[in-house]
């Protein structure tokens, strides 16, 4: 009698059920465990919506042949926000720039070196992914390898942007990997830092007060970075341009309302749309493959190697520095702002209760964001 009412049960597969459970887990982690809640909660809902069959929510406008009213809401967001124009991950950089305080890096520009060294994780994962492709274990080419490797930058929006340009079918899983590892910084980084540093090195006291940065320096920083980076790596322009624009809104002091909007309403609105789209980019057909586990493993390797690269550069800087230099702050070069700085702060205090490394750790932390934007530009220049 109710034949006209088509339920979703008939089309529900095991893959759908598994991913719905993953979505529920994300929601649990966001609400109960406070793991990256602003990202994992909308991603979880997007994931559930994408895997409930028969909704039509994922139908993209390009699939409808121009027929009006047939595209689904999430399909529209994915096509226009991520795949065709890629505006959502870029707009989020305006808000991130407005939220970022570069003063610790301006006070000690040499900390840029730590942000550069930590990018080694991206290169290791890039070559690792290619090796899996080479030996026929996975179907990873250069584009896929670059998209996976960028997870090591521990920068969600950069990962989303690069993947959407180079390997759009992997977008959902690389984004989730990036945000998950960012949420797990406190678990992943400490053993690596401990393995690479001695107790005496971890105890090294660094002056917590950095020199006072003038307003002029703060204003010139985003302008100098924007022009110099884009001249050197033009394809980083979308990321660096929006990031530095957002930061200029913050430091200029002339546009308080715009700065406030970028830091709150704007970034929150874009986060809702972006994370919902990311969750919806993971239907079972795309995710339930062995490659997904390899992506997660390679992302973890990238993150771990990035941490190690930063710490080793920190040890080198410790040897040549005239002032006391705690090598642990190198771990923050992977970005993951501000979680990795907090991890180093906590470890620093555990080793030496008089130590307060947070401000020193924030320098490499924001340098890592710039570093991953540069390497994203390099990947896009060569492969995009």
């Amino acid at each position: 009698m109710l034949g006209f009412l088509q339920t979703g049960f008939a089309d529900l597969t095991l893959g759908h059920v598994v991913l719905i459970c993953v979505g529920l887990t994300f929601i649990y982690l966001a609400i109960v465990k406070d793991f990256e809640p602003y990202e994992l909660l909308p991603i979880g809902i997007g994931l559930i919506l994408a895997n409930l069959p028969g909704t039509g929510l994922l139908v993209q406008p390009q699939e409808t042949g121009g027929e009006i009213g047939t595209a689904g809401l999430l399909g529209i967001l994915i096509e226009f926000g991520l795949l065709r124009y890629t505006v959502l991950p870029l707009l989020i950089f305006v808000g991130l720039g407005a939220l970022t305080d570069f003063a610790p890096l301006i006070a000690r520009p040499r900390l840029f070196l730590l942000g550069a060294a930590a990018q080694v994780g991206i290169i290791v994962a890039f070559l690792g992914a290619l090796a899996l492709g080479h030996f026929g274990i996975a179907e990873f080419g250069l584009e896929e390898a670059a998209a996976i490797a960028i997870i090591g930058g521990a920068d969600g929006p950069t990962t989303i942007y690069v993947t959407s340009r180079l390997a759009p079918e992997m977008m959902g899983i690389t984004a989730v990997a990036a945000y998950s590892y960012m949420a797990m910084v406190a678990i992943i980084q400490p053993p690596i830092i401990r393995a690479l540093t001695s107790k005496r090195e971890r105890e090294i006291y660094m002056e917590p007060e950095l020199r006072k940065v003038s307003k002029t320096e703060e204003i010139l920083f985003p302008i100098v970075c924007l022009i110099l980076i884009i001249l050197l790596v033009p394809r980083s322009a979308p990321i660096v341009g929006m990031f530095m624009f957002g930061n200029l809104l913050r430091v200029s002091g002339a546009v308080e309302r715009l700065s406030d909007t970028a830091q709150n309403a704007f970034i929150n609105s874009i986060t809702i749309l972006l994370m919902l789209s990311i969750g919806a980019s993971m239907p079972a057909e795309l995710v339930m493959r062995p490659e997904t586990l390899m992506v997660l493993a390679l992302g973890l390797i990238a993150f771990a190697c990035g941490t190690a690269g930063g710490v080793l550069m920190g040890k080198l800087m410790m040897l040549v520095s005239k002032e006391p230099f705690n090598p642990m702050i190198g771990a923050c070069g992977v970005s993951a702002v501000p979680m990795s700085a907090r991890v180093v702060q906590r470890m620093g205090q555990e080793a030496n209760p008089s130590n307060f490394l947070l401000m020193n750790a924030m320098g490499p932390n924001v340098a890592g964001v710039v570093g991953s934007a540069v390497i994203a530009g390099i990947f896009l220049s060569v492969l995009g």
Partner: protein
Amino acid sequence: MGIDWGFAAQIGGFGFVLVFAVLIMLALAIWLVGVIVGRVAASKAEGGQERERT
């Protein structure tokens, strides 16, 4: 899958070197800006003090 390892190594090696080069240049540029801004501020402060004295 056939991988062009020479090209891949170029991307990896050149990419890593370029990141270092770009960030070192940025560090130098930011340090230079700091020095110039500091000197300008110091000379302004000196000028102001002299004016006050005269």
